[in-house]
């Protein structure tokens, strides 16, 4: 006979302010199976846990129900408490009196009654709980890192330096991400490539890192510690082993007018190309969509000039498979938003550019070799206007959220401009200056105070061209919303940082969640910022939300440390919430009818066939069997099995029926 203890938590005023906890505890005393019931101010505190342990000992409890916060918060806490007191942790359940009751209902009898019902339900369930023990599975100690921006680079190096294998895949021909495009970086104004390039090279040369560029994840199966990744290596049309990176092909390729991605279309590249001089790996790929040979069947000039005969026009895409223990998603972000605003004339006026384009103009390796020259006629702009929040914080036309990095990079751009064009005038139209970071506010103040950048608080309504000038119509809200017109030579839009448009696809391949803006969702906004809700998959960098380099790197190292924690064990222990097919004594062996409906619906291929043999070794019955390493405990099989032969531990048929009945029979 079950001996159940009920513990009702006040959570200070959080529950106690709305629910009469004492009354709930009193009512619980009369529930079938309950031998002890009490309430306490903070159950998760040390004294609270001690109280539970003492009650277990004193009343010889076999099961525990804690009526407190969400089990998503403290279930592990109380299960641990119980097992420390000698009761199997899985004999403890939580009734959610806070998130599902006191916080969502008004104070009063109805709410207290609901709380009592919730406790009764869980008491009903616990009566049918069985002691379970955690499952152990082996771990493949190789990490898959998706995305080779600074986030992916940092994570890979951290894991590899700790002695574990890393497979780093990058969609583009080179790693480096957005950071490789930046000129100088706030808040220190150090040269981006100078700090990034050595790390890129380190990645390429690290014995523990397998770098696969021009590649994308095809699929990911399995579970934490035991994933199988299938990776599509897109055909580069060169034999990387033969290619020496001499660059002969790229100089000879006659197709030279393709707007280059790396220079944000401010410069051109060839059809066979290395995205930028410091690219890693420094070997070209052929862009099939623009290559004359692929499109029209003629040319092959690169092939003729290649000294090592490395060109392979017939190279197919290749699929490679790797066994993976954990995954880091580090796919970063995109800038977008120029098309949100026809009133700003991006695309119509050549001298209205994006912040990323400005980075290329300011970069010593960029199309103007670091001189700020406007795209239309190459003149040095005497008057430049920066628009902050161009697409961000704009539910009507752009995105709702703040892109977080643009206040800082706009201040940086204005400063870089002033440092390069001393006599020039720089204006920034802004709404708020969001510069909360170490030395960040000082940085933006320096732009205003020392470099005399003219900050005007107000959004711009319209930009139009008049006699070769860009007329920027704004308002100064600090001067009573006075209209302001600036005749500018160039305008830079701090466009919004958004998720990649294929982020949702990737999320679905990985079975991780993504938010309404297609950014990947962390497991907990404060306490699990680098984890996802899927065990073994972690996040780093701007794929989770817009962030700058310092935050990206911190997050990347955080994700690496989580993986190192995982790889420090040879075996993983997992929740024993898995399905089992019943077994019985001969001649029945199992009620399983061998229909394998369960097998066809299991998303994890966890159900196998087991042949039951007699002494003579003849098969007398084929029944289902669950591989507990693969089973993730979704329970789909249970709902499908007509003979009720498969059940799931922790959420068994008996438990669920009892829980529902306990609720309904409350009169």
């Amino acid at each position, binding site marked *: 006979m079950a001996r159940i203890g009920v513990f009702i938590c006040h959570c200070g005023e959080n529950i106690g302010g709305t629910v009469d906890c004492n009354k709930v505890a009193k009512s619980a005393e009369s529930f079938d199976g309950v031998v002890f019931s009490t309430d306490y101010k903070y159950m998760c505190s040390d004294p609270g846990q001690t109280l539970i342990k003492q009650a277990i000992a004193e009343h010889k409890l076999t099961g525990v129900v804690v009526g407190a916060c969400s089990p998503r918060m403290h279930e592990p806490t109380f299960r641990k408490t119980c097992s420390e007191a000698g009761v199997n942790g899985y004999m403890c359940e939580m009734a959610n009196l806070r998130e599902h009751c006191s916080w969502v*209902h008004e104070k009063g009898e109805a709410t207290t009654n609901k709380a009592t*019902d919730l406790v009764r339900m869980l008491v009903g369930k616990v009566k049918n709980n069985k002691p379970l023990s955690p499952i152990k599975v082996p771990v493949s100690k190789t990490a898959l890192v998706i995305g080779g921006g600074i986030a992916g680079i940092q994570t890979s190096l951290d894991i590899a330096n700790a002695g574990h294998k890393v497979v780093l895949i990058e969609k583009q021909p080179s790693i480096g991400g957005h950071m490789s495009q930046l000129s100088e970086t706030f808040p220190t104004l150090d040269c981006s490539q100078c700090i990034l390039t050595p790390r890129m090279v380190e990645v390429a040369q690290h014995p523990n890192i397998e770098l696969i560029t021009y590649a994308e994840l095809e699929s990911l199966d399995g579970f934490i510690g035991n994933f199988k990744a299938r990776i599509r290596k897109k055909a580069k049309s060169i034999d990387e082993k033969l290619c020496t990176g001499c660059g002969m092909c790229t100089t000879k390729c006659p197709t030279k007018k393709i707007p280059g991605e790396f220079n944000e279309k401010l410069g051109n590249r060839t059809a066979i190309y290395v995205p930028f001089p410091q690219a890693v790996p420094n070997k070209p790929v052929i862009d099939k969509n623009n290559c004359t040979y692929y499109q029209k069947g003629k040319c092959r000039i690169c092939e003729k000039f290649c000294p090592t005969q490395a060109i392979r026009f017939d190279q197919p895409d290749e699929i490679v498979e790797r066994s993976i223990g954990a995954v880091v998603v580090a796919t970063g972000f995109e800038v977008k938003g120029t098309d949100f605003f026809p009133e700003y004339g991006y695309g119509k006026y050549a001298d209205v550019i994006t912040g990323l384009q400005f980075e290329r103009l300011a970069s010593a390796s960029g199309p103007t070799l670091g001189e700020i020259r406007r795209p239309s006629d190459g003149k040095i702009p005497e008057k430049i206007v920066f628009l902050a929040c161009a697409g961000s914080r704009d539910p009507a036309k752009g995105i709702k959220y703040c892109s977080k990095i643009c206040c800082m990079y706009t201040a940086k751009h204005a400063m870089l401009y002033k440092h390069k064009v001393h006599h020039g005038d720089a204006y920034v139209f802004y709404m708020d200056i969001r510069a909360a970071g170490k030395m960040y506010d000082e940085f933006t103040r320096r732009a205003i105070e020392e470099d005399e950048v003219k900050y005007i608080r107000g959004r711009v309504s319209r930009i139009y061209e008049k006699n070769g000038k860009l007329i920027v119509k704004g308002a100064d809200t600090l001067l009573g919303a006075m209209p302001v017109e600036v005749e500018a030579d160039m305008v830079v839009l701090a466009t919004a940082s958004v998720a990649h448009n294929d982020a949702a696809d990737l999320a679905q391949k990985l079975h991780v969640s993504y938010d309404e803006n297609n950014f990947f969702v962390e497991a907990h906004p404060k306490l699990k910022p680098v984890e996802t809700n*899927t065990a073994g998959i972690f996040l780093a960098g701007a794929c989770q939300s817009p962030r700058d380099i310092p935050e990206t790197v911190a997050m990347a190292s955080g994700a690496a440390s989580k993986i190192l924690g995982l790889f420090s064990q040879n075996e993983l222990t997992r929740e024993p919430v898995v399905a089992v097919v019943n077994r019985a004594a001969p001649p029945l062996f199992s009620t399983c009818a061998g229909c394998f409906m369960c097998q066809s619906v299991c998303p994890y291929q966890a159900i196998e066939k087991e042949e039951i043999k007699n002494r003579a070794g003849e098969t007398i019955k084929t029944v289902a069997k669950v591989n507990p390493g693969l089973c993730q405990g979704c329970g789909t099989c249970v*709902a499908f099995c007509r003979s009720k032969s498969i059940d799931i531990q922790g959420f068994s048929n008996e438990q669920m029926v009892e829980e529902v*009945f306990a*609720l309904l*029979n409350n009169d």
Partner: protein
Amino acid sequence: MENNIKVVAFVCNWCTYAGADLTGTSRIKYSSDVKIVRFPCTGRIDFMLLMKAFAEGADGIIVSGCHPNDCHYTSGNFHARRRWIVFKSVLETFGIDTRRIQFSWVSAAEGAKWAEIVNTTVERIKELGPYTEYRELAGVEAP
């Protein structure tokens, strides 16, 4: 009587349960006539259990899980949905009032949506009143 209706919510652990937690953390109020039962996944939910719940005195039921493609277990919600389509037609042939079952998707980010679904369902069930017909039909005494 009318006010004393019972709505049981069968929800998945990853999306809707977490969404309902968010309703709580956001302090959005909703009707207390709904009680949540946590399942690992909507795929786990056996529709016979819904029938049992009606027989035992439930007046309305909410089944809610992750959005299509967002299922924590890849496809559990998809199976649940498919099963529900088949099941619904069965229920209807038996004369069971499917307006009493609300099927929905609530993600972990949709705290406000959860409150809205609870409130509209409770309102509808209140209009329909206690489900005595079913209990008579099923030969169960109305509580």
